[in-house]
């Protein structure tokens, strides 16, 4: 069943492609390891299809308690990012945690080292900014996180913004965006997000798409300001 899912997903790379005019779209699947309970918070992935190579994302945990005290670290994560975001929709009670430039000291980042892609083949590195959302279900609808709920497999999605100044190789001066979500590509549902406490690696599989296109002609802010002023 899992292999079937992987095969179907890989096949969809060919079928599910509508990118803005002039843009190149890739639909990479990836499998990786990392942990919110370790420091630094870095998840490192291998691409499974759509691209070959590796990629990683990093979340600034400089304000989080040290992993040597996992209870304090988890409590901080929960209290800071989740506890205040409880949705009481009947039958769909859940907490959502937002990890972005508003809730962290710095905007999370990502890096990709791409050794090949589906045609058109592109090789190089790219990086930029990222934001994450994690959903934790309150299965018993009591507004209290139980151990079973904490240990469950959680929804996870990320959006990416490509920083053209970080591109090398075929990604020099390339702009674009991306989005990914947790999919069980090769394993079971445990390949979605887990806190893994006591601290250990969390196996995470993501499916998503990258839309890459040449950056618009360089425009300085001061020039834009001048142009805007003309129309005021």
């Amino acid at each position, binding site marked *: 069943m899992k292999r*079937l*899912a992987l*095969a*179907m*997903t890989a*096949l*969809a790379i*060919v*079928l*599910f492609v*509508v990118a*803005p005019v002039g843009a190149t779209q890739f639909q990479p699947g990836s499998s990786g390891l990392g942990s919110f309970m370790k420091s630094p918070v870095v998840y490192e992935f291998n691409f499974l299809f759509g691209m070959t190579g590796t990629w990683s994302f990093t979340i600034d945990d400089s304000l989080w308690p040290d992993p040597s005290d996992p209870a304090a670290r988890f409590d901080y994560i929960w209290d800071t990012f989740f506890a205040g975001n409880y*949705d009481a*929709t009947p*039958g*769909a009670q*859940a907490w*959502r945690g*937002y990890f*972005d*430039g*508003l809730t962290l000291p710095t*905007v999370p980042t990502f890096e990709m080292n791409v050794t090949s892609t589906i045609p058109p083949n592109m090789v190089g590195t790219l990086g*930029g*900014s990222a*934001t994450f*959302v994690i*959903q934790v*279900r309150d299965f*018993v609808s*009591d507004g209290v996180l*139980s151990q079973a709920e904490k240990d469950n*497999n*959680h*929804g*996870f*999605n*990320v*959006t*990416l*913004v490509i*920083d*053209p100044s970080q591109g090398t190789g075929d990604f020099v001066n390339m*702009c674009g*965006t*991306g*989005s*990914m*979500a947790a*999919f*069980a590509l090769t394993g079971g*549902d445990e390949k979605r997000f887990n806190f893994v406490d006591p601290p250990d690696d969390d196996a995470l599989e993501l*499916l998503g*798409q990258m*839309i890459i296109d040449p950056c*618009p002609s360089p425009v300085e*802010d001061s020039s*834009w*300001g001048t142009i*805007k002023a003309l129309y005021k």
Partner: protein
Amino acid sequence: MRALTIAVMIALFAFASIANADFVFYYGTGNGDFMDTPPVFTGGMDPGGMITDGSWTITITDDGWPTDPVARAAYIWDTFYAPNYMPGSPGFWKAYFDTDHGLAAMNALQIVDETGGAGVIGTMGGVCSVEIQVQDDNSNGILDEGEFCDGALTGQVIIIRDGSGIYDGLCGTGDYFGTYEKQSCPDTYETWQFGMYLNLNDCTSPVQDMSWGGIKALYQ
């Protein structure tokens, strides 16, 4: 065409297993407009997933939003996008359409599965968040024309146990990734394209909050 045929054959093979599957995924493409009251995004399934025929609908909860187009657009921007600007190269805005960021209730999700071509074999519904990213191409912190035409779309999903057919008694969670694109930007009518993963479980055993509370109390 050949790839499409292969996809359909694989999907038909997968169909027999859906009832016992612990997960379902599909690819959807559809349209909608935040200027509509309420905004309803709806469309069909694309090949490549386990649900290959049918429809999906996401209805954005717009309680309290202005109906005047100018005021409505300003309200949406000021409420969901403007407060969430992230500096960077380029900077970007991230809108979270959910109850944590100003919606009166979560967005409604409905899925109709017609895989197999013999009509509806199941329906399921629930709620979902909608996250939309807008890049500030010149990083000046001001939304300029052309910056809100396309971008990343993601969200979280909860399937409530009110399904029918092969989804009767199932509930679960999921997430999705994708894109939005305004067809004639800056017109607001847009196309959504996404892949959605759903982990479904048998939820037919009734569980009451009071019972769970009682059980928890025994162990505290």
